[in-house]
């Protein structure tokens, strides 16, 4: 139990520099109370309750009777040694990296485009957001039909361009199903990346570019030497946030393939969902959920550290 507490609350945060300040600050804490209570109830409590469930053998027989025996780390051992978990973890890593690389690059390129002024800029930017605004079920269903082997537009396009001899069943072939879901997720994520990167670009003072061009810099040089270094903190934040969003994606994959064929697209969130809500193996599901949260928490702490670091240095 103690290692669980250490995991949730790093000791560094509990220790206080001075005791007297605490009372004086009580009034300030009161202002925080509503937000704190909200967070405790809606975020901290479920996570802790999940942590607790992950060390009990909660299943169909013990779910309601509260008679689940304490099993320590048995659920974790069971989950980690399950080949399906290892497969799911690996797929989640592929899914996340594949999505992030393209979302970010294309999002960055579009942000550069929209950072210039041209007629129709506002309208096009609003249209770009469409992918982000559509309910995921809608965009995932559309992609499912686009990738369909019989009547999908992707086959039609590739065949008319001469890139493909015979129609392919993209979401049914084990080698391409994951790629299909990644493509859909990239499309959904591009506006998110663009919209977060654009203000970063806009905050770079024009005078820097002017100075660079006076020194004779080519556009490529000013991009390499001015834009990229100044965008680094923003880009890192976007990538970390993107990781958090992507690693836990459930709906796109579920709607497009249900985790199939066989388990070629059973990413970690789908695996967790299956354990808990399809198989009623709540204890194992909770343990898998904790293992899903682990990399997310590490990245989240990294993000917090980064933004704090950024603030204090600016």
């Amino acid at each position, binding site marked *: *139990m103690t290692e669980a*507490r250490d995991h*949730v*609350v790093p000791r560094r*945060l*509990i220790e*206080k520099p001075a005791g007297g300040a605490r009372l004086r*600050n009580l009034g*300030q*804490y009161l202002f*925080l109370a509503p937000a*704190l209570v909200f*967070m*405790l109830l809606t975020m*901290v*409590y479920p996570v*802790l*309750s999940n*942590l*607790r469930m992950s060390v009990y053998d909660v299943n*169909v*027989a013990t*779910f*309601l*009777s*509260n008679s689940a025996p304490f099993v320590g780390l048995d659920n974790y051992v069971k989950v980690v040694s399950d080949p399906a978990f290892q497969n799911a973890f690996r797929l989640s890593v592929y899914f996340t990296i594949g999505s992030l690389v393209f979302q970010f690059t294309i999002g960055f390129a579009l942000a550069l485009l929209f950072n210039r002024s041209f007629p129709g800029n506002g309208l096009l930017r609003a249209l770009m957001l469409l992918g982000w605004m559509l309910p995921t079920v809608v965009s995932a269903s559309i992609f*499912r039909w686009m990738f*369909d*082997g*019989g*009547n999908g537009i992707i086959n039609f396009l590739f065949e008319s361009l001469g890139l493909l001899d015979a129609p392919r*069943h993209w*979401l*049914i*072939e*084990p080698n391409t199903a994951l790629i299909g879901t990644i493509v859909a997720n990239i499309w959904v994520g591009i506006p998110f990346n663009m919209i977060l990167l654009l203000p970063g670009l806009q905050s770079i003072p024009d005078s820097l570019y002017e100075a660079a061009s006076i020194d004779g810099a080519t556009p490529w040089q000013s991009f390499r030497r001015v834009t990229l270094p100044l965008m680094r903190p923003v880009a890192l934040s976007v990538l970390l946030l993107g990781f958090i969003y992507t690693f836990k994606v459930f709906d796109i994959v579920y709607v497009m*393939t*249900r*985790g*199939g*064929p*066989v*388990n070629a697209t059973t990413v970690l969130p789908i695996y967790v969902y*299956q354990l808990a*809500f*399809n*198989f*009623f*193996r709540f204890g194992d599901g909770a343990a898998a959920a904790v293992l899903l949260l682990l990399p997310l928490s590490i990245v989240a702490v990294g993000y917090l550290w980064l933004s*704090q670091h950024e*603030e*204090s240095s*600016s």
Partner: protein
Amino acid sequence: MKNNAVSRRKFLEGLALGTGVMFLASCAPPPAPAAPAEAGDAAPSDQPVTLAWWDYMTASNAAALDTQMAKYMDEFPAITIERTSIPFADLKQKLLQGAAAGQLPDVVIIDNPDHSSFSALGVFADVTDLVQSWGQESNYFEGPWASTLYQGKNYGIPDNSNCLVLWYNKAFTEPLGIQPPADWDQFKEVSAALTEEDRFGIVMSGVKSEEGTFQWLPFLWMTGEDLATLDSDGGKAALQLWVDLVDGGYMSPGILNWTQGDVKGQFVNGLAAMMVNGPWQIPVLREEAPDMDWDVATLPVEKQGASILGGENTAIVNSTQNLDAAWTLLTWRQEPENLKAYLIEAGKLPSHAELAKDETWTSDPALSVFVEQLQVAKPRAYGPNYPEISNAIQEMMQAAISGQKSVDVAVADAQAIITPLLPA
């Protein structure tokens, strides 16, 4: 900016303190489970009672329930029924959440393969005594009735039934003089004969969900085998049949991602000459393609005829305070006259054997095929581990049809997973 950083730290400190408290709280011993309601404790029926009711019905199904409940509330003014419709995909999760939070309705309509899982979970009330004094068991088909049982006890009563049959588009079969296939050999021949460049002979659903399992199990049963003997000549033949249909080009490999709704879409759009589907598509087809000339036939027979039993049951929730009122409502709905009106409006088939002899179902050419097929429809009565068993079947189908595993290996692997999950 500096200030901001300090307040963030304080916020985290506050969070840390709160977290500690919550952690202790969550370590506290869990509250004792609520005692199950006793029939004797329930309110007498002349007291005003509100019954909460959950289902996942939409469209004509929901309208039929609303009609029926309005009638009930007219007859029993003291009873108010509050019906809540929850999307099918969410109902199981909602029931689990409600059970954990102690907030469940009084009555639930549930998909019959899920019934025993929730009985095992302790969500539904054991109504064995009430069912026995009711004495109607012999009026029901065996399959639907068995799906309400868990470890020999009654946890509800059947509401309606459905099963799968073979649908064919006469515009494609009649020019070729093709009759519905009687056995598997004919099934393959007919599927091949009906296949054109832009049209598949047959479509069935092999999607990775319960729907895929639902469509394949009848073929296993037709061979006389069952899940305990999946790894047998019959089990392999049933899987090989689907693989052959796909490999021969008579059935699209797309079936691995098609739900039964998608299968119906292929059929309606003339992209498939035959499909396997259930009676709930009748009103859909009549509305979407009123001019289409389709017909239905019983599934082809191998060693024996078989289909799968779908449909819903009604169950009373274990924590209800209104057991008597809920039971009265459930049995009132099963009185032939009330049941018939509801089933007709909802477009459903009866689980009630006597009612199935009514001319509503015997005189309609399409419905009578379903009622005939229902005689050999088996329930998925595989105990509370069924969802995991079903998943193993889906993975077996997908691995063999997509060519990742040979039929022999896929069947053997599935058997290894399924055997320990079957009830002893």
